[in-house]
């Protein structure tokens, strides 16, 4: 299963990647660290099965991404702060 992480703290993204690798067959194919980069990345319509999304990003809330573009992939939201 292929998944993408939207997370601004590098360490946390790495932690999640390793955790998923250990406990499941989910492979992380990309890590994006800001609202801005997400808007660019997803407008290219990449394919993935799942999204892990941190609510608080450095330049805003991740909800902004989804209010601006339609992404067809199921999301799991989580919070660190």
């Amino acid at each position, binding site marked *: 299963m292929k998944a993408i992480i939207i997370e*601004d*703290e*590098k*360490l*946390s993204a*790495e*932690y999640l990647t*390793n955790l998923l690798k250990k406990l499941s067959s989910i492979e992380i194919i990309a890590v994006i*660290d*800001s609202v*801005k*980069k997400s808007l660019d990345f997803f407008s290219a319509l990449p394919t993935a099965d799942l999204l892990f999304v941190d609510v608080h*990003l*450095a*330049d805003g809330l991740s909800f902004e991404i989804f209010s601006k573009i339609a992404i067809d992939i199921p999301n799991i939201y989580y919070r*660190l*702060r």
Partner: protein
Amino acid sequence: MIVTGILISLLLHAIIPWPENDHPRVYDFLISIIITILVWEGNLRIDDMLNKKLPWVINPAKRILVHLPVSLVFSAFAIYIPMLVFNTYVCENVELHQGKLMLSSIAIGVLISFMILSVEISTQFFSNWKKSLVEVEKYKAESAQAQLQNLKSQINPHFLFNNMSVLASLVYKDQDKAVDFINQLSKVYRYLLDSRNSELVSLDSELAFIKSYTYLLQIRFDKSFVFEMDVPQNLLSKLIPPMALQMLVENAVKHNEVSTDHPLTVSVSANENYLTIKIIFNCARMKKTQLKPDCKYTARYKHFTNNEVEIIENEKSYIVKIPYFEN
């Protein structure tokens, strides 16, 4: 005041048996009023002048030692000279020239001045004392508030929680770094405990603490957070309130974007008079709320020193200058 003059002169004339005069009574009243006005106004001027040169708050003992004699000597002269003039030009009665009578009127005048002066001085003294007591209480309250805020924010779950998340990631990824991280985190909490009851700490210890604190931030944010420090050795014994720097750094991180696109730089330097912390945020988005803590911040400082905390705002950065304190 003129009314008082008239009253005093009436009083005096009632008390002292003046011999029969060859001039109308009205002149007596007039001279008494003139003397009263002179003494009163003169003493007011003396009080004003001394308030500027020797204010109560600075040196109360000296103020009393100077104020009393000056006022009394002035009052004595203010009574003697007009009376002399009066006796020479107006009143021809030789008896009145007798030293004894003059002396007794001067003595009474000075006595009355002394009584009024004592009341005035005591009132001033006590009102100033009360003012300074109120200042102390206000400071205590504000200081307690600030301390409470600090405690809340540090032992608060968020700080711990964030750092634990970082630590969890580190444990798998880089064990040596994880151990360093734990040590620095402990140093932070150690400092919180130690400095909790101190009013002032040395620049040396506060900077050591900031190094630990920003280490944690650097691990968490990686290249997005940059900390620089350049403080000359000879300034390390200067005193500042504990957490002064930390509050500013925490605020900067909380209210500004910290990302690879827009890294946050915190730069600390110092000169003889100020500790300077410069925060470069490189980003158009800066929340206005960021300045609010600084108002409470500067208020705390007002109690300690006459130098003020200086805040300079620029487009992409802001600078806070913290003055040092005397013990």
